[in-house]
C-alpha cells in the first residue's frame, strides 16, 4: 500500500466520514485512519435483531463486567447489553480527570465512531449563537456567521436525510427536511396549550437524521428505536450507511482500522504538516503516512489529544499551539431533567411503534434586546410524551393476579422535558496531557479538567421552573423537576479546545478551520467550536467539515497550501 496520499483523515466518525466523502468526491486520494475495529454495515450489527430473552442478561447487561471494563461507559443511558459492543472498554482506554473534578467521557472507538451511537438530533446554529461570544464577551468571537454555513447545512441535510418541520424561528433556522415524524396525541395537546399561553415558544417534533422516505439505497425508518445497535436498513445517518459508501464509490479511499494516530508530524522547513505517525494497536507496528493535507476528525477531545501529543522544536506544547490555548475553552451542555409530569387526560388513546425522536422546544430566552433572567444565552428542551410501560411495576406496590393484570395495560401518560443549557467557553475548562499517567503504549493520558459554571446553574434553575410551568399549563401534575447539571460530559456534546477565531494569539483555528499556525491541518470536528449554543452540535460539525473540504481543495489547486 502506498504511504503517500493527497489527504489523511484522522477518524471515521460523523465528521471523518464526511471529510472522506467530500475529499474523495473532489478527486483526492484519501487515507482514512480509524483507531478502532472494522464494523461492516449490517453484517456486524450482531445484536440488532435480538429479543430480550435472547440476551444473556436480558438487555440489562452484566454489572460485574461493567464494573471492571465499562466503569464510565455504563453510566450512559444509551449503553446497554445490546449496545455495549459499540462503546469503548474503559479499562483498555483510560483517561484522567483533574483533581476534584469528574467527567464522563463516553466514546465509541470503531469504524463509524459515534455515528453509530449518536442521538441523531440535527439542528442548525443561528446568528444568536455565532454572535454570542462577541455580544457578551465569553470566549472569542466566531470568525463565521450563519450565512457562511447555511449552504453547507443545506448540502449536509440533503445528503444525510433529516426529517423535521420548518418553524421560521430565529433561534433554530429552518432546513431542508424530509416529512416530519408525527407528534403523538398528548404532545399535540401540550403544543397547543403551551403556544397559547406563551406565543414566543414553540413545541415541534425533533429534527432527526432518521429517514421518513427512502433515499439512495437506504430504507425509511422502521420505528424500532434501537438505532444504537446499528441499523441494517440504513435508516439513520451513520458513516456506514451514508458517507462511507459514497467515499468508497469514488475508488479514491483507502481505509485502515485498528490504527491510532499518535502524532501529526511537522516539517519546520516547509512550515507544514508532512503526515501522521501511527500505531497499529493489534500488532504494535509503528509507521508514517505522508499527505498534503490533514483533516483532524478524531472526535473533539481526541483531536486535542493528538495535537497536544504532536510536539516538536517548533511547537513544544503541541501542534498549532502558539497561542497556548490549545485544549482550553472546552464545553459540553449542562443537562438535567427539567420536569416530568403525569397526565389524567387521553387515557383511551395511545401510540403504536417506537418513534426514534422526541420533541423539542427551541430556545426562547435572551433572544431580544433585553436580558431575561439572571443568566446569559439560553437553553432548550427535548423530551416527549409516553404511556408508562411494564417497568412501572418495579415502583408500585402489589403482587398476584391483580398486579399482573394491571401491568397488562398501558400505564398513565407522562411527559418529560430534558433541559440542555449552553455551556460557556471558559479558559479554565481545559484538556492537558497528564503529567504522570500513561496508556498501555506509553502515551500520556488525556486529562480533563471541567466544571459547569454559575451561568449554567442559573439557566437550569430557570429551565426547571419553565418546564414545570409549561407541563402544568398542559394539564400535567409535575412529579419531578431538577436543576443541577449532570457530571461534565453527560450530554455527550463535549467540544472545543481548538476553537475558531480571528486572532492567532487567542484562538487555534481560523475561519476555514485551518490551524492558524499550520495551514494544511484542518480541524473540523467538535474541537473547533468557539461556543456551544444549546443545540445538538453534530450537524454543525458536518457542515463545517464539508465547507472546509471545499476550501481545502480549492487552496490545494491554487497552490496556497
Amino acid at each position: 500500500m502506498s504511504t503517500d496520499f493527497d489527504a489523511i483523515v484522522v477518524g471515521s466518525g460523523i465528521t471523518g466520514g464526511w471529510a472522506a466523502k467530500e475529499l474523495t468526491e473532489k478527486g483526492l486520494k484519501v487515507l482514512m485512519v480509524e483507531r478502532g475495529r472494522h464494523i461492516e454495515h449490517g453484517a456486524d450489527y450482531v445484536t440488532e435483531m435480538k429479543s430480550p430473552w435472547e440476551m444473556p442478561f436480558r438487555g440489562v447487561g452484566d454489572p460485574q463486567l461493567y464494573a471492571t471494563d465499562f466503569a464510565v461507559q455504563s453510566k450512559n443511558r444509551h449503553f446497554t447489553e445490546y449496545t455495549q459492543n459499540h462503546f469503548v472498554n474503559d479499562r483498555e482506554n483510560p483517561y484522567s480527570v483533574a483533581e476534584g473534578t469528574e467527567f464522563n467521557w463516553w466514546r465509541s472507538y470503531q469504524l463509524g465512531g459515534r455515528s453509530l451511537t449518536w442521538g441523531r438530533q440535527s439542528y442548525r446554529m443561528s446568528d444568536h449563537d455565532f454572535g454570542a461570544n462577541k455580544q457578551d464577551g465569553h470566549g472569542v468571537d466566531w470568525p463565521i456567521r450563519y450565512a457562511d454555513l447555511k449552504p453547507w447545512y443545506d448540502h449536509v441535510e440533503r445528503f444525510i436525510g433529516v426529517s423535521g418541520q420548518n418553524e421560521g424561528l430565529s433561534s433554530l433556522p429552518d432546513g431542508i427536511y424530509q416529512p416530519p415524524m408525527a407528534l403523538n396525541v398528548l404532545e399535540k395537546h401540550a403544543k397547543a396549550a403551551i403556544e397559547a399561553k406563551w406565543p414566543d415558544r414553540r413545541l415541534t417534533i425533533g429534527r432527526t437524521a432518521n429517514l421518513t422516505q427512502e433515499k439512495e439505497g437506504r430504507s425509511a425508518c422502521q420505528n424500532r428505536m434501537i438505532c444504537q445497535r446499528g441499523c441494517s436498513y440504513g435508516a439513520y445517518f451513520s458513516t456506514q450507511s451514508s458517507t462511507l459508501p459514497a467515499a468508497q464509490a469514488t475508488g479514491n479511499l483507502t481505509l485502515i482500522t485498528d490504527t491510532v494516530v499518535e502524532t501529526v508530524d511537522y516539517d519546520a522547513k516547509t512550515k507544514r504538516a508532512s503526515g501522521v505517525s501511527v500505531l497499529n494497536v493489534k500488532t504494535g507496528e509503528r509507521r508514517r503516512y505522508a499527505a498534503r493535507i490533514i483533516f483532524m476528525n478524531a472526535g473533539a477531545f481526541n483531536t486535542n489529544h493528538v495535537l497536544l501529543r504532536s510536539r516538536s522544536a517548533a511547537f513544544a506544547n503541541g501542534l498549532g499551539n502558539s497561542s497556548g490555548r490549545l485544549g482550553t475553552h472546552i464545553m459540553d451542555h449542562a443537562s438535567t431533567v427539567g420536569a416530568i409530569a403525569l397526565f389524567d387526560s387521553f387515557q383511551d388513546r395511545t401510540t403504536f411503534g417506537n418513534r426514534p425522536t422526541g420533541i423539542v422546544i427551541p430556545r426562547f430566552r435572551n433572544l431580544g434586546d433585553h436580558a431575561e433572567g439572571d443568566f446569559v444565552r439560553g437553553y432548550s428542551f427535548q423530551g416527549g410524551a409516553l404511556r408508562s410501560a411494564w417497568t412501572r411495576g418495579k415502583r408500585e406496590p402489589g403482587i398476584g393476579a391483580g398486579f399482573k393484570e394491571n401491568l397488562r395495560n398501558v400505564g398513565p401518560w407522562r411527559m418529560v422535558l430534558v433541559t440542555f443549557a449552553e455551556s460557556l467557553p471558559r479558559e479554565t475548562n481545559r484538556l492537558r496531557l497528564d503529567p504522570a499517567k500513561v496508556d498501555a503504549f506509553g502515551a500520556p493520558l488525556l486529562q480533563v479538567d471541567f466544571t459547569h459554571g454559575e451561568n449554567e446553574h442559573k439557566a437550569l434553575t430557570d429551565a426547571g421552573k419553565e418546564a414545570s410551568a409549561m407541563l402544568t399549563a398542559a394539564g400535567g401534575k409535575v412529579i419531578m423537576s431538577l436543576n443541577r447539571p449532570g457530571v461534565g460530559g453527560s450530554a455527550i456534546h463535549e467540544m472545543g479546545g481548538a476553537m475558531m477565531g480571528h486572532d492567532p494569539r487567542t484562538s487555534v483555528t481560523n475561519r476555514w478551520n485551518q490551524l492558524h499556525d499550520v495551514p494544511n491541518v484542518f480541524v473540523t470536528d467538535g474541537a473547533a467550536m468557539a461556543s456551544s449554543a444549546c443545540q445538538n452540535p453534530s450537524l454543525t460539525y458536518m457542515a463545517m467539515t464539508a465547507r472546509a473540504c471545499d476550501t481545502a481543495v480549492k487552496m490545494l489547486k491554487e497552490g496556497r497550501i
Partner: protein
Amino acid sequence: MQEEISRAGIGRRGLLLSGMALALTPADVWAQVAAGAPLPDRHRTLVTRVCDLVIPDTDTPGAVKAGVPAFLALAIGHGISGSNAPVAAALFTGGKAPAEAGILDWLSFELDLKAGRAFLSASPDMQIRVLTDLDSQAYTRGNEKSPWRTLKGLIVTGYYTSEIGASQELRFELVPGRFDPDIPVGPKDRAWSNDWTAVEFG
C-alpha cells in the same frame, strides 16, 4: 457468629426452619453466604414460591414458567441492581443479622418473621397475606431502600423480558414498521413490552 445468630432471635428460628436448611448449622449457613453462592438450595424453593406469588399463572403462564427464578439467580449472582450487596443490619426487622447477610437471607428472615413460622410451611393464603404485607411496607415512604423493592424489580424485569412475559402476557414487535401517534386503547388491550422509551422512562 453464633452469638449474632442467637440474637437474631426469631430470624434464626425462621432460617433454620426454612426449607432445605434444616440439616445445616448456622455457621454452615453463613459460610455459604460468605462464599457468595448465588442461589443455594435453602433459597431456591423460597425464590420459586415468591416468584409465583408475585406473578402467578393466569390465562398466561406466570413467573415460574417463564424462568424467572433462574434469572434471579443470575441477577443476584452478578449483582444486577446491587442485589449482591450485603443487606444492612438495620433492615432486618427481626433483629441484628450477621454482616454478610445477603438479599435472600433478608427475604427469608422477614417472611419467616411475619409468618411467625417457616414461610414455606404456611398456608397459601397466609403466604399471600405475609408477602402482601411485606410488599405494602416496602412501598411506603421512607422504605425506598427496602431490599424487597430490588427483588421485586428483578422479578418484574425477569418476567417481562422473558419470551412468555414479553410476547404472550404482553405484545412484542421488534419491527413495528410504522408509528401511529393516536390510536384508541381499551382495558382489554395488552401493552407492548418493547416500547423502549417507555420501558426506560416510564
